[in-house]
């Protein structure tokens, strides 16, 4: 068997060494595959970045309560009484003083000017209480200070600062008739909360004519992940028409919004891949034709046709893997960490960054290998069948 493998290895090495003679054809094949892989990875990184931003937003230590069927914080609404009633449910963690740990919040939309196109886009403004700050993990005021209750002051998320104009520390912002001052900038470790403006809940209620109503309640669970006691409490009270979900589940659902983009990316790049496949086949058939006399000579010397087959296949795989790597690196350079924003479930801009994870990288290489494999198979079959008499025919 040693002879068998060393035969194949010899032919593979010779094939690879002969690549420079077909430089342009080979580069064309590499280029085609690299573009296809880069396109795929751009779309996948977009969907993945969005998904991870939202997945990173939710935790199973927190439950979120919305009005039944509302699907998003924006659509939900509930009265002060409802909030007070829910807060008495079992299963909610309690603080040192024995009070339930929860935060009733408002979620209104205001306009901001997007840096990328200078057009208006929706930014969520959350009415929140200091207790609500305690329900966000990794929360940090990175600049300035916390807003003071009762005043028209806001703190802005880092994502808003990145994507929108005019929210820098100290700026005055006008919403309708009222002016608000930016007094701080906060970070939540890249989660979707960073796409929001936060202000004092009672102030938002009065300035946006919301009376005493709220939209959602967040609460800390006694047992992480266990919403069952609260769910039972809600179900047993016909007055409460509410959904109870862990925050992790809530945001995971919203994170699937761009799954369609990933599917679109796959369809598109597989179709483009067919074009690249045509290119790869062209290159490889040309390669077999160019090497016909070499292949035949090797066969005359006593090399098997399997070695000719494998050599051609290896050449094709090498080209496509090189293309796949080039495409993946290009996608990584251009798209990884690229900050963008799109409409989320609450009709507001969610700021997220493209993420090229190792598993996406692997997907890209798999696509490249598939092109190389199919693009090499048929030409390799032809290489295996080059008649040995070709070695005796003249001409360079």
């Amino acid at each position, binding site marked *: 068997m040693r002879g068998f493998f060393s035969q194949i290895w010899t032919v593979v090495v010779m094939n690879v060494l002969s690549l420079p003679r077909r430089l*342009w*054809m080979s580069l*064309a094949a590499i*280029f*085609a595959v690299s*573009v*296809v892989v*880069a*396109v795929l990875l751009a779309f996948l990184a977009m969907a993945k970045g969005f998904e991870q931003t939202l997945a990173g937003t939710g935790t199973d230590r927190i439950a979120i309560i919305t*009005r*039944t*069927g*509302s*699907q*998003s914080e*924006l*659509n939900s*609404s509930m009265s002060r009484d409802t909030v007070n009633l829910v807060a008495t449910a079992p299963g909610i963690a309690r603080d040192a003083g024995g009070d339930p740990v929860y935060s009733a919040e408002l979620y*209104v*939309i*205001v*306009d901001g000017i*997007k840096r*990328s*196109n200078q*057009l*208006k*886009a*929706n930014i969520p403004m959350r009415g929140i209480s200091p207790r609500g700050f305690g329900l966000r993990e990794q929360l940090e005021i990175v600049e300035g200070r916390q807003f003071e209750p009762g005043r028209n002051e806001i703190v802005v998320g880092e994502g808003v600062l990145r994507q929108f104009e005019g929210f820098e520390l100290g700026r005055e912002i006008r*919403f*309708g*008739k009222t002016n608000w001052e930016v007094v701080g900038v906060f970070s939540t470790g890249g989660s979707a909360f960073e796409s929001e403006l936060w202000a004092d809940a009672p102030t938002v209620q009065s300035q*946006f*004519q919301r009376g005493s109503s709220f939209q959602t309640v967040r609460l800390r669970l006694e047992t992480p992940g266990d919403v069952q006691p609260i769910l039972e409490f809600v179900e047993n009270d016909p007055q409460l*028409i509410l959904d109870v979900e862990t925050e992790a589940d809530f945001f995971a659902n919203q994170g699937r919004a761009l799954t369609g983009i990933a599917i679109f990316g796959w369809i*598109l790049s597989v*179709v*483009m891949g*067919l*074009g*690249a496949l*045509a*290119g790869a*086949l*062209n290159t490889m*058939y*040309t390669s077999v034709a160019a090497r016909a006399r070499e292949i035949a000579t090797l066969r005359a010397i006593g090399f098997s046709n399997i070695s000719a087959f494998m050599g051609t296949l290896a050449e094709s795989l090498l080209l496509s893997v090189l293309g796949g790597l080039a495409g993946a690196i290009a996608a990584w350079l251009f798209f990884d960490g690229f900050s*963008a*924003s*799109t*409409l989320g479930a609450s*009709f507001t*801009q969610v700021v997220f960054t493209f993420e090229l994870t190792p598993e996406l990288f692997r997907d890209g290489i798999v696509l490249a290998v598939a092109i190389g494999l199919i693009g090499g198979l048929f030409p390799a079959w032809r290489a295996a069948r080059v008649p040995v008499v070709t070695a005796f025919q003249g*001409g*360079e």
Partner: protein
Amino acid sequence: MKDVYLILKNLTRKPLRLFLTVFATFIAFMIFGTLTAFQQAFDAGVDLAADDRLVVVNKINFTQTLPIAYVNRVRAVEDVVAVTHLNWFGGYYQEPRAQFAMFAVDAENFLTVYDELVITDAERAAWIANRQGLIAGKSIAESFGWQAGERIPVNSNIFSQRDGRTDWDFDVVAIYEGADPQTDTNSVYFHYEYFNETQSFGGDFIGFMGVRTTDPERNEAVIAAIDDLFANSPAETETVPEKAFNKAFIEQIGNLSLILTSVVLAAFFVILVIVGNSMILSIRERTREIGVMKTLGFTSGRIFRMVLVESLLIALIGGMLGVAAAGLMVSLVNQAPIQLPVLVLGGSVWTQALLYVAVLGFITGIVPAMNALRLNIITALSRS
């Protein structure tokens, strides 16, 4: 062209290579055709927006409400022909995920302002007469299987009735069609009165207004007049032309046209390289023959033209087949029961495709054609 026979023979001498290059071109043009249809559908909201129509929203954001009293005040503004108001209902049918665009409107004025929604006069009268009636666009009706005359329940993910229920019963009075094939028919409209009287949220507010003006030239004056009217009130307004409003709305999703254009460019770039290389190669393989043709008296210019025509033919065959396939894809997408704008593969896509065919054929053919042009007979024949 006396050389047609020779060109065709050259083209088909390696059928496999011809197939592969045509196929690569085909793929790129199919992507081009399909994505351009998508892009035009997204842009339709902007392109089809009426020039004499304005949108009045709350200055804070279009999701903030306005008092209903504003409607009559706007109606009194000079050069305003008609005013209607709309409330986003947050409707979904059976499944919370099956959300769609549903608005509570004042029927009569609504059909005047939005006259691109086509229903018969009888249907119009029937709708106005039926308090629980709604009209649904052709596309949305098809995706949910609604028929005119049917009674359906629709839920709201925002509002609830006074008794706590979140579902309302409606009569489907009419299915409207669009005046233009690309007019959006994914929306549903019902009576504001029915909404206002039954929902529990506190009444007499509206989402936004649609305003028709006498003349697009007068838009600026009307905009200023409306916004002045409500300056320094608790709910200030912002009035914008419908085109601008729709554009900003589409842009909220992201820069779709940049994404689509980049993908199409990438696809074209790939085939440019593949086809160009293949052409150079096939001319190089013919060096000796071209030398022979030159000794026979074919002029260099004639050979140059033959090579160029060959590459143009490849682009033409692949390109036209590709756009035709895109037409097929588009009709498949249109038939699929999903809420997408209607895709139309119009004449403009074919014209653009022809232009790209010419450009592509020229770029891929020019280098090999120049090589053939410059080829010296002696070197051509001595190169064995």
